[in-house]
């Protein structure tokens, strides 16, 4: 099963090089999304989890990450069918776009399924290189700038992560392996000083990829300049892939009894991420940048939850699922807004609900989902985290956490209310009516499904999903 997920895109890419047809390439993306989803479901039910490819396997930790990736990719693929029709680009460019999406999803899947830290590193870097083209897709001056910063900052970050891997290799003494299971097994024998140094580098390296402050600079630019389906994939799946590698590194620290050091570092980076978002989200003039800052915030919350430990691990997984679905929905809806108004400038948009009711309400409900409005699953996750902070006696941190979240909520809420409600200016009505006809049913449906799941999960978690989450928590 795992073999199929990893081999299919390679075969599909080769076929795309031979059969140079726009429809065929789009079909391949859809086919891969369906195959990916079906196989992941089977893996979730324990069918065919054995892999004949070395270095890749499904275990307790990565299954939920794979499920999130698979579902978000399926939804993005559905949206993408409508989105591609709005392009005014030559066929070659659209073919390359589909080609790079397959490579990008393949590298993320490989990162998640990898059982070896070295291979994870290689594939994380591969995600950077494959998604650079997608960020640069619009070929504007801004997209060049965003893609350059993305490749350059992430490559440096990932290079530093490799320094971390070398230091980990030094700390492991006579144990010569990068296999996660082996590293966990021998973690207690590692030299703590070298291990701590290794964790600092890995945290900075993979943290850069995850979008944690203070190494987050690429994220607002890349997310805002990429086409909306790519922004959704970047925010809802790519950041999770990097987070998964950090979770694995954190587990080594836990088993090596260096957990306090790791927790301190994660708390610092998590709170800086929240602070940076609170400062910048309030002033940003571009609604896609605002969503990008929200991703930084949520990555900060995930890392703080991981640092808290205990029950907060359960909250981290819930938050991961909720954020991925809600943020993908938010970004896809922002694609509709861009299609309607032709601008990313917040000032130029008002009366979205009047312009297009479905897009307007999806925009508002996505906001409610991401700001943890009950019954959004994010409400449960944030509530558990706050409760854990109080139970552990981190009263000041809890106060700071709620204060920063409130500021961010106000910053995003102000923009959403300003853009969704109010009157539509007369001079734009005609242009919006023309643009509205280009938005197909497939560009509303995925957001609706994802938001429905986010709000249902807040009141009911199906037993099979609950079991998987519990297994993931045990694997932390």
């Amino acid at each position, binding site marked *: 099963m795992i073999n199929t997920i990893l081999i299919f895109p390679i075969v599909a890419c080769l076929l795309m090089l031979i059969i140079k047809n726009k429809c065929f390439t789009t079909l391949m993306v859809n086919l891969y999304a369906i195959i990916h989803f079906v196989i992941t479901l089977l893996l979730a039910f324990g069918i065919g989890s054995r892999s004949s490819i070395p270095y890749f396997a499904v275990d307790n930790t990565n299954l939920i990450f794979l499920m999130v990736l698979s579902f978000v990719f399926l939804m993005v693929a559905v949206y993408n069918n409508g989105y591609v029709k709005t392009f005014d680009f030559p066929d070659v460019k659209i073919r390359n776009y589909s080609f790079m999406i397959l490579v990008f999803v393949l590298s993320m899947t490989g990162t998640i399924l990898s059982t070896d830290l070295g291979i994870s590193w290689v594939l994380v870097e591969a995600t950077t290189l494959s998604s650079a083209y997608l960020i640069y897709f619009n070929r504007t001056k801004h997209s060049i*700038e965003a893609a*350059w*910063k993305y490749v350059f900052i992430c490559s*440096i970050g990932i*290079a530093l992560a490799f320094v971390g891997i*070398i230091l980990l290799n030094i700390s492991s003494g006579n144990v*010569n392996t990068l296999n996660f299971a082996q590293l966990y097994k021998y973690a207690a024998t590692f030299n703590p000083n070298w291990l701590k140094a290794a964790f600092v580098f890995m945290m900075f390296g993979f943290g850069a990829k995850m979008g944690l402050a203070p190494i987050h600079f690429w994220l607002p630019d890349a997310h805002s300049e990429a086409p909306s389906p790519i922004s959704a994939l970047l925010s809802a799946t790519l950041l999770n892939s990097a987070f998964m590698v950090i979770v694995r590194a954190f587990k080594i620290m836990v088993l090596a009894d260096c957990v306090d050091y790791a927790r301190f570092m994660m708390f610092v980076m998590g709170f800086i991420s929240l602070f940076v978002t609170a400062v910048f989200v309030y002033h*940003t003039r571009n609604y896609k940048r605002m969503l990008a800052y929200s991703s930084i915030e949520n990555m900060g919350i995930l890392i703080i939850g991981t640092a808290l430990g205990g029950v907060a691990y359960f909250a981290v997984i819930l938050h991961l699922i909720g954020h991925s679905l809600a943020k993908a929905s938010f970004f896809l809806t922002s694609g509709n807004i861009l299609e309607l108004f032709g601008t990313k400038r917040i000032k130029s948009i008002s009366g979205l609900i009047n312009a297009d009711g479905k897009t307007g309400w999806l925009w508002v409900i996505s906001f409610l989902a991401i700001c943890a409005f009950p019954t959004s699953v994010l409400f449960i996750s944030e509530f558990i985290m706050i409760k854990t902070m109080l139970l552990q006696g981190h009263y000041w941190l809890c106060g700071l956490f709620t204060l920063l979240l409130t500021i961010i909520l106000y910053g995003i809420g102000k923009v959403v209310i300003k853009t969704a409600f109010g009157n539509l200016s007369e001079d734009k009505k005609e242009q919006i009516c023309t643009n509205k006809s280009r938005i197909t049913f497939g560009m509303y449906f995925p957001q609706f499904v994802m938001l429905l799941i986010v709000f249902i999960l807040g009141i009911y978690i199906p037993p099979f999903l609950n079991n998987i989450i519990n297994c993931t928590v045990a694997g932390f």
Partner: protein
Amino acid sequence: MRWLCYHLLLRECLGANKMVNGFIILFGLTMLYLAATSRIIAHIRILIAQGILLFLICCCGMKHITFLNFAFLTVETLIVKSIIIPAFLYKVLKKTHSNRDVAPNIPHFYCLFIASTILMAGFLLSQYYVSAMKLISPIYFGVSAAVIIISLWLITIKHKIISNVIEFITMENGIFLLSLSVAKEMPMLVNMGVLLDVFIAVYILGLFINVINTEFKDLEVSNLSDLKDYEYND
């Protein structure tokens, strides 16, 4: 077996243990030259020199090396690092006509001074701290740490985009030297993946330089600062 004999013979001819320290020191000194010059063609030549030095360090420094590993390291250092990447950058340089990185944020004299201080700190680190550790060669560790830090620092002070790419490659060379400092070897697959990623990263960055060159008047980093939070133009 025959291969091992040839390799050991080569090590003996080169006076391996003494020579390797010399090569590592030379490798560190190339960073001083990089810090003190503004001509980009000279920076590319430094990359070639670093590639050759890394090859010599591999030849002299590694005691138990298999043929496969040696072949891989030769491809990595001599072919990719000394020929392909510099040739590609030279092509980009010719196409973009950006010959000098004039007036970095800090004058060259101070650059040289700071780079020397970092290099000295690297030697001291290796002498007094790392030398007590098993499984690591101290001089490798100290020089590679210094090279990584100098490269990162140079990235922050240079104005030309192509200079940033060159310093990124010197940083990767520093990391390569660091990986040689560990007595254990990384799995071959990881090494190949690392090489492939670095190669593609340089290739993509090179392509972007060409694109930036056609879109903007010159290859200054300051051109790439239009995306801001406080003001936004579509």
